């Protein structure tokens, strides 16, 4: 009896373990478009997919996450039709995959936000860098009151953290000061900054509201206009990538996204239109 039990368990678990390996989606099957990559782009891509599928019921678009690096890799290797990345595609990546086509569909600013009671309205980029490195620890060092700065950030792997790193810290994999409070989403960072006195954090423009105060960076206010004009320094692109020239339904969807209608949806969602 005991022997039977163990062998049932073993064989069943092996069967399930074998089923666990991810199936590779077929590339470019015509009526189905597969998308994977940045989780920052994901919600926007889903809205754009729904809008397109409404007019083209014969097309099915599935949007998955995974992260920007996964987006680049899966587009280049053809495991998906479109990869997404919430950052610039790196030169090494373009060198490794020369056939990659990059379509910038939108831009997203990252706002540096502080608790509403912090008497600081603007910071230099180097000051933000100092705060997140841990070399600046009190608000008085950056023209504020004599209080310790509470640093709030995102966890490693987050696209927003990566973009913040490459735009402010000059290193995507920067070491954030150890005592930083880490929260797992833009919304959680906003809540933490809004409820913690003397705190500073960074969030996507799409999450800005009156519960936190966005500070000007190098004298430029964090607004969509400034980001569009290129004055605001912390702006990242939302990219869609295909391996080679897009064709068929993939091309049609990308054309829709880059059309006036598509860009209007992007602006409605709180992001900055690319066109």
């Amino acid at each position, binding site marked *: 009896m005991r022997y039977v*039990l163990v062998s*049932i*368990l073993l064989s*069943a*678990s092996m069967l*399930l*373990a074998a089923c*666990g390996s991810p199936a590779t989606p077929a590339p470019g099957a015509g009526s189905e478009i597969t998308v994977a990559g940045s*989780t920052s782009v994901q919600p926007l891509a889903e809205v754009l997919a729904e809008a397109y599928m409404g007019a083209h019921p014969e097309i099915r678009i599935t949007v998955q*996450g*995974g*992260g920007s*690096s*996964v987006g680049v890799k899966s587009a280049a290797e053809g495991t998906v039709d479109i990869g997404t990345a919430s950052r610039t595609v790196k030169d090494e990546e373009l060198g490794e995959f020369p056939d990659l086509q990059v379509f910038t569909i939108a831009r997203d600013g990252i706002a540096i936000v502080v608790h509403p009671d912090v008497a600081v309205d603007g910071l230099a980029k180097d000051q933000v860098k100092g705060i997140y490195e841990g070399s600046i620890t009190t608000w008085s060092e950056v023209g504020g009151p004599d209080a*310790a700065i*509470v640093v709030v950030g995102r*966890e*490693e*792997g*987050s*696209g927003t953290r990566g973009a913040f790193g490459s735009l402010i810290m000059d290193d*995507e*994999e920067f*070491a954030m000061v*150890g*005592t*930083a*409070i*880490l*929260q*797992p989403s833009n919304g959680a960072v906003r*809540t933490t900054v809004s*409820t*913690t*006195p003397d*705190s500073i954090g960074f969030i996507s423009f799409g999450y800005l509201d009156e519960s936190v105060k966005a500070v000007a960076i190098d004298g430029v206010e964090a607004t969509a206009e400034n980001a569009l004009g290129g004055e605001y320094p912390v702006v990242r692109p939302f990219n869609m990538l295909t391996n080679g020239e897009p064709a068929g339904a993939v091309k049609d969807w990308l054309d829709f996204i880059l059309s006036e209608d598509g860009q209007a949806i992007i602006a409605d969602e709180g992001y900055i239109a690319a066109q």
Partner: protein
Amino acid sequence: MDMRRRYLVDRSVRYLLFFSALISLFIVFMIGLFTLREAWPAFREIGLLSMLTNSEWRPGRDQFGLLAMIAGSVWAAIGSMILGVPLALAGAIFLAEVAPVWMRGIVRSSVELLAGIPSVVYGLFGMVVLLPVIRKIPVAGNTGFGILAASIVLAVMILPTITNIAEDAIRAVPREYKEGSLALGATHWQTIMGVTLPAARSGIVAAVILGVGRAVGETMAMIMVIGNSIVLPRPLNSNPLTLFLSQARTLTGNIAVEISYATGLHEDALFATGVVLFVLIMIINSSANLLIRERRR
């Protein structure tokens, strides 16, 4: 004929129950196997020893030390024990020995209600009510987030577990023990302290250990109040008690905070965190079971 039917029904019910029991066994087995399978590359490439002894967790630079998270989980559990165990034990003694019948019902059902509150609600309560209060403690570097907030939230969360099991243990003490003690002239309180509690000792210890297991496994409420910083908790100034104001990250929080963006070795390392947690809780629970079994003997 009738005999045969009854026999068949009897046998099929037996197999039905057997397979139902088998399913939960199977699920535990599968979860363990799956977690281990996913974690295997991390153990192979990073090494279990280096994960357990290194306190640097920086997946972007391929550093995967779990020591800071292990310390975070342990300190939060210790803090919750210091705050929660005396409260829970006092409650259990009250329910088993002191409370009048009408009051017992009210107190017990409110303790049980605590067990039914979702973890995220405890976290919310901690964020909105506890953090601003803790923030008022005048220590440099105190942000409110940290082990103290986590300990207080956990202490309340483990209260029902410890109270219920400890109460059962106290009730299981044979009546004759108490009667003997009272007959010798001991007061009610002396009997509780000198006879009942020592006799229920192993059951009470098991209750506490199960509470520890629950504390170590708690996730959502911890993410919301402990700060999730990757630092080895250490005192903020010369007073060693300020260690509890230090931020930390728990093993459970490490997985929950990072899993959504993790890929490759980073993801494997998070599954390895799960294996470490799994083993830790298995050790804790089986030591509780061992003590309970010893009591029955």
